[in-house]
C-alpha cells in the first residue's frame, strides 16, 4: 500500500465482494422481534429496579446489558440463526475443537537454532528444520509430542563449490525424507540437487544433480522406491536406489503423491482454476467442475478451495458442496490439506465435519509448515513476542477421522 488512492480502490473492490441477501425479510423479522422485546424490556427494567445493582440479565437467550438498543443489536446477532451454509458456522477455538491436535513445543533446538516446522509425519510426530540463520537449514529433526523430545535425523550436508546454497522444500512419506537444494556455480548457472535420508537417521545421500533446463524443479514427493519431482514442463521419477530419471507425465505438477494437477506454482497462476486432478499411479483423471465465478481453485482428490467474488470458496471436485468460506480472505494457491482441511487466515475449516477451528493467537504472526505437499502444520508463538521461546502447534494429521 503506497497511496491513499490505492486504499480507496481496495475498499471499493472489497465492497464488490459483499454478499447478496434478502434484506427485507431479515428486517421485517427483526422489527417483529424488537416490538416483542420492547414489551419484555418493561418487565426486565422492573427486575433491575428491584435488584438495584444488576446490569446483566440473561433471559431466554437474549442478553440484555443495560446498554439500550446497541445491546439488543448484539443479542439478535447471537440469537438469530441464519440460513447458513456449512462453512458459515462460526469458528470455535482450536483447543476446543481438536484438543488432541494442538500442543506446545520449544521454538529452538539444543543448539539454539530456530525451528521451522515442515509437516506432521503422524499424529504424534512433526518433521522440523532447525535453522542457525534465516532459511539456512542446519539439521532435520523430529519432535515427538508424547515424549516431548526432539531427535536429530541428520545434519544438513552442503556441496563445496556452490554459492547461494539453500535447502529448499522437503517431503516425507513416513519412512524417508527427501529435499532439493538451490545453488549456483561460480559462473552463475543454476544447480539443483535432490537428497534423501531415512527418517530413522543416517547419512544423507545425493540422488541427482540437475542443471540447465532440468534445474527448474518446482516440487518434490516420495513415491515408494522412487523420488518424484515436477518442473515447469513435466513430472519426473528416479529410483531411490539410483539410476536415470524417467518422465512420468507432461504438463502436470505434483500436489501430494500420487496426485497431480495442471497448474504450475508461480507468478500469473494465482487466479487460474485447476481443471483436473490426475492420479500418477493409475492414470485416473478427475475433471474439476468449477463453481461459477470461481478463481484460484486448488483441488485435492475430493475437495477444492478458492475464491469467489473475493470471498473464500470450498467445493468438491465434482462441483457439489459449494459453500462460501466465512473468512473473507483465503490465501491464494493453497491446496486443501490431507484433501480435507482448508486454511483461512487464523482459521481452519474441516470439510469432513463442516466445523471451523479458530486460532487464538496472542502474537501478530503465524506460520504454515513448509513441506512440498500441503503441510498439516500451523504454528504461532505462545506469547506476543516476535521471538517466542515456545510454539503452539496445530497438527492436522492428529485430527481424528470424521465419524
Amino acid at each position, binding site marked *: 500500500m503506497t497511496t491513499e488512492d490505492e486504499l480507496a480502490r481496495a475498499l471499493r473492490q472489497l465492497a464488490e465482494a459483499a454478499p447478496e441477501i434478502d434484506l*427485507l425479510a*431479515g428486517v421485517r423479522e427483526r*422489527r417483529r422481534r424488537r416490538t416483542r422485546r420492547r414489551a419484555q424490556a418493561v418487565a426486565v427494567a422492573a427486575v433491575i429496579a428491584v435488584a438495584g445493582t444488576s446490569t446483566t440479565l440473561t433471559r431466554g437467550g437474549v442478553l440484555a446489558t443495560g446498554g439500550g438498543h446497541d445491546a439488543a443489536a448484539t443479542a439478535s*446477532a447471537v440469537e438469530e440463526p441464519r440460513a447458513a451454509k456449512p462453512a458459515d458456522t462460526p469458528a470455535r477455538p482450536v483447543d476446543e475443537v481438536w484438543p488432541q491436535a494442538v500442543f506446545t513445543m520449544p521454538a529452538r533446538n539444543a543448539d539454539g537454532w530456530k525451528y521451522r516446522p515442515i509437516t506432521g509425519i503422524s499424529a504424534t510426530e512433526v518433521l522440523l528444520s532447525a535453522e542457525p540463520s534465516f532459511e539456512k537449514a542446519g539439521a532435520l529433526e523430529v519432535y515427538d509430542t508424547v515424549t516431548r523430545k526432539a531427535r536429530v535425523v541428520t545434519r544438513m550436508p552442503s556441496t563445496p563449490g556452490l554459492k547461494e546454497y539453500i535447502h529448499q522444500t522437503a517431503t516425507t512419506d513416513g519412512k524417508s525424507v527427501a529435499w532439493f537444494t538451490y545453488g549456483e556455480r561460480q559462473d552463475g548457472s543454476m544447480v539443483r540437487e535432490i537428497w534423501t535420508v531415512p527418517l530413522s537417521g543416517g547419512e544423507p545421500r545425493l540422488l541427482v544433480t540437475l542443471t540447465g533446463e532440468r534445474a527448474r524443479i518446482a516440487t518434490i514427493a516420495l513415491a515408494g522406491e522412487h523420488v518424484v519431482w515436477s518442473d515447469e514442463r513435466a513430472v519426473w521419477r528416479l529410483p531411490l536406489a539410483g539410476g536415470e530419471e524417467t518422465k512420468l507425465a507432461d504438463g502436470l505438477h505434483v500436489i501430494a503423491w500420487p496426485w497431480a494437477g495442471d497448474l504450475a506454482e508461480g507468478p500469473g497462476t494465482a487466479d487460474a482454476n485447476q481443471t483436473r486432478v490426475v492420479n500418477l499411479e493409475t492414470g485416473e483423471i478427475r475433471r474439476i467442475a468449477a463453481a461459477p465465478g470461481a478463481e484460484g481453485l486448488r483441488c485435492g482428490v475430493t475437495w477444492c478451495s478458492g475464491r469467489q467474488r*473475493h470471498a473464500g470458496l470450498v467445493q468438491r471436485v465434482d462441483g457439489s458442496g459449494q459453500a462460501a468460506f466465512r*473468512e*473473507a480472505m483465503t490465501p491464494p494457491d493453497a491446496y486443501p490439506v490431507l484433501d480435507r482441511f482448508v486454511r483461512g487466515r487464523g482459521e481452519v475449516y474441516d470439510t469432513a465435519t463442516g466445523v471451523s477451528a*479458530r486460532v487464538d493467537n496472542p502474537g*501478530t504472526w503465524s506460520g504454515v509448515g513448509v513441506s512440498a505437499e500441503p503441510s498439516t502444520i500451523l504454528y504461532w508463538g505462545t506469547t506476543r513476542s516476535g521471538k517466542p521461546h515456545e510454539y503452539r502447534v496445530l497438527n492436522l494429521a492428529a485430527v481424528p477421522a470424521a465419524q
Partner: protein
Amino acid sequence: MDHTADFDEFVRARGDALLRYGYVLSGNMEDAADLVQEALARLGDAWPRVRRKDDPEGYVRTTMVRLHINAWRRRHREDLVAAVPENGRFDRYDDADLWAELRQLPPRQRAVLVLRYYEDLPDDRIAEVLGVSRGTVRSQAARALDKLRIARVLQEAR
C-alpha cells in the same frame, strides 16, 4: 397510516449499497448483514419521522458505523489478530493483503478510513458521524495509515 410500502421500496433500492458499506466496515459477511438489518429495522421504527425530516440513508449509515464500533467494544471480537502467514509462499501482495491489514485495525480507526476513503466524507462530517472531535478523526486516520504502511514494510522486508 401505513408507511410500509415506501420503506420497503427504500430497502429494495438502497439495500445492496448498504450491504457493501457494511461489508467494507466490518470485513465479514455475517457482521455486514447484521449491521444493515439492525440499522434498517431501526430506520423502519423511525421511518415516519426520518423520511420527512432527515436523510434516511444517512441515518442508516450513521447507525451502522456506530453499531459497528459499539458492538465491537462489547464483544471483544476474536478476529482482532488476522494472522499473516509467515511462510513466504503467499508472495502476492495485493488487495487481499491490504484487506487483511485493514482487519487488524481497531474498528474506530477502520471506520475513519472507510468514511474518508470509501464514503468520501470530509473530516468534520466524519467527526459528526462518530461523535468525536475533528482532531480525533485526524489522529485516528493518521495512526491507521501509519499502521498500514508499517505492516506493509514488515511484510516486504521478510
